[in-house]
């Protein structure tokens, strides 16, 4: 072992010892403070009655439920906002990214303007803008709601559409739909294998036929009943309402993050070697097939790791919804529940672990998808696209 190695090892060991000592000191202090107050550390409080109400709940919840249930309610609200934001941000990002690459100057400049304007504003301002400016100051009051027939109401209290109540035969409809989707996927796999073996046979008409089965079934039997929104004194007694709080968070997150995703899409496409495009051209692929078969699959490889980062950012940034009263995990559990119970350490630790788990699971799924693409690229693209005589 040379001198440098020894010095480095000593430094590292010292640092770790210092860290451990620091944590031990904080832990000791905490336990001492807690025991002075005759409070036991633990999650027993999760079974106590919460006593406060929450505006948006995906599962049944009343004030008589426990603090543990407020955690689930908050978590589901976080996941709801995250999932919608991720889907919208991906779609928007893709479209804007492709627009920026367009040879049409109007298109590419519009995209450039969109990206530069939105990504240089802090995300909190996005959220506040949609809530304070758009919802609270621009949209009409509840009683003078903007209406589109009987189906759509837009006002300061949110966006309301009819709800669909499942009927008795809804179960049968779900089963038929599920079977049809499985069939379509199965045919897709068969098709790929046939291509690899060099057999060319049309299977898509069968897939369309399978898709038509549940549609026709739904049309004939009506598994859902549409219930139009009904205005009562204070709110809609029926129909589905997207509250302004959720809307603001979702739109803010989707537009803000879509700018980053669009840049990732653009740079990934530019990163595909030019020779690939030229080769595709010389083989006579039309432009949309070039994009679909040659460019995007190769760009995907570069795209997915940075896009995963953006997804994680969205999940974490939904906690900004706290600023506009969106009842997510941070606002409900790390906010109100913490305040009511005073269990700072337990609540904060649980919330941190939860965000960590959501993020890790998301990365895991995205990495898994990434690997599956790379595998396929090696096999499929080269073989599928060479016409087999």
């Amino acid at each position, binding site marked *: 072992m040379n001198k440098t190695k020894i010095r*480095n090892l000593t*430094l*590292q060991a010292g*640092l770790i010892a*210092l*860290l451990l000592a*620091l*944590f031990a000191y*904080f832990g000791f*202090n*905490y336990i001492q*403070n*807690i025991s002075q*107050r005759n409070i036991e550390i633990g999650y027993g409080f999760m079974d106590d009655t919460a*006593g*406060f*109400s*929450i*505006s948006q709940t995906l599962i049944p919840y*009343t*004030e*008589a439920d426990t603090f543990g249930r407020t955690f689930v309610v908050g978590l589901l609200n976080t996941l709801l906002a995250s999932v919608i934001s991720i889907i919208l941000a991906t779609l928007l990002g893709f479209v804007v990214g492709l627009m920026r690459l367009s040879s049409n100057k109007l298109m590419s400049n519009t995209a450039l303007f969109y990206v530069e304007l939105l990504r240089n504003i802090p995300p909190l301002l996005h959220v506040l803008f949609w809530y*304070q400016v758009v*919802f*609270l*100051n621009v949209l009409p*009051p*509840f009683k003078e709601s903007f209406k589109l027939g009987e189906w759509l109401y837009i006002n*300061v*209290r949110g966006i309301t559409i009819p709800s669909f109540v499942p009927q008795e035969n809804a179960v049968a409809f779900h089963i038929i739909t599920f079977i049809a989707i499985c069939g379509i996927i199965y045919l897709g796999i068969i098709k790929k294998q046939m291509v690899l073996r060099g057999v060319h046979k049309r299977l898509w008409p069968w897939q369309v036929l399978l898709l038509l089965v549940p549609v026709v079934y739904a049309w004939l039997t009506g598994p859902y009943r549409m219930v139009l929104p009904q205005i*009562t*004194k*204070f*709110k809609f007694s029926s129909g589905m309402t997207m509250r*302004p*709080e959720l809307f603001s968070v979702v739109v803010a997150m989707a537009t803000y993050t879509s700018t980053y995703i669009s840049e990732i899409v653009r740079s990934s496409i530019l990163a595909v070697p030019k020779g690939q495009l030229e080769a595709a051209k010389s083989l006579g692929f039309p432009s949309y097939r070039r994009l679909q078969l040659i460019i995007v699959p190769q760009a995907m490889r570069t795209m997915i790791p940075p896009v995963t980062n953006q997804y994680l950012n969205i999940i974490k940034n939904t906690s900004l919804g*706290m*600023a506009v*009263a969106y*009842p997510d995990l941070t*606002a409900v559990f790390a*906010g*109100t529940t*913490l*305040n*009511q119970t*005073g*269990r*700072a*350490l337990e609540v*904060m630790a649980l919330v941190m672990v939860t965000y960590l788990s959501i993020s890790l699971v998301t990365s895991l799924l995205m990495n898994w998808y990434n690997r599956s693409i790379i595998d396929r690229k090696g096999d499929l693209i080269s073989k599928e696209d060479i016409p087999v005589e």
Partner: protein
Amino acid sequence: MSLKATFKLSAAALITALLSLTIVSCGSKETAVTAEATAAPAESSTSTLDLVKERGKLILGVTAGVPGYSAPDGEGVWQGFDVDLGRAVAAAVLGDPDAVECRPLSAKERFTALQSGEIDLLCRVTTWTATRDAELGVNFAGVNYYDGQGFMVAKDSGIKTLADLDGATIAVQAGTTTELNLSDYFRKNGMELELITFEANEQAAAALEAGRADAVTSDSSQLYALRTKFKEPENFDLVPELISKEPLGPVVREGDDQWLDIVTWSFMTMLNAEEYGVTSANVDEMKASSDNPNVKRMLGVEGGVWEGFGLGADAGYAIIKSVGNYGESFDRNLGAGSPLNIARGYNALWVDGGLQYGMPIR
């Protein structure tokens, strides 16, 4: 590991450590202050009355600036409903209502400041509760404002009473007892509620103003203050009922009964003066010509009441002459004569159906 990497690691370690510190300390802060306040020894060897006389001025603990209750005016002079009570005590003790030094205190500092003798009297929108009386070594000298959790609604909403709020959307500030009181009340009465929880009272009020919510709830004094910031304050009003009790009053150190009596009776004098129609304008005339024995005793014409407290005979007269009666002070700072425009409500005199009841001066 390179030196640079080591630096990076140590920086990360430091940040982690700081973070954990913040989390840990957040949990224990509140109680630590209370514990300190409890432990502080009551300093009461000399009487507060002698101290104030010797010093020549009264040191009054007030808010850092709540309009109507205690806030500095354009010239930096403290004005307000709570300040008036301090001025009344100064007038009674020193004969000079302006011999008051106001000391702005945060909610956490207030009891410690009183305990340690830094201030003589605390008039800082402080709620009278059993725990405070029992554990903090302080005494409450009365209730000068009956506050409580109220509801502000738009006048054109057709909501006149609490019962009309069944099914309404209500905005509230997060993490307060207000939030819990509200849910409890609605649950108890079988009413439906949609609660939107904001980080700040101002945001909750803005939600009402924009029509996002049907009502905003908080302590009624807070709601009146929030209303002054609305674009059209005249379009909003409070429903008459309150769902919690927040009696606000002056606080003194425990262990000095004479001083407690002086503060209590300075306040009672203001209440009695309103009941008997004595105002700052007519107090000279009343003193000279009133036949009412209550008024005579109050203004020191007969009875020798004030000497019993260790004060001059004209202490009562000085209070009314300089500060006015309870109603005058209320109107000037909180009521119709102020931007807050608070209705008397529970703070009306008992003879008018309110709760303010001046003990008899005899």
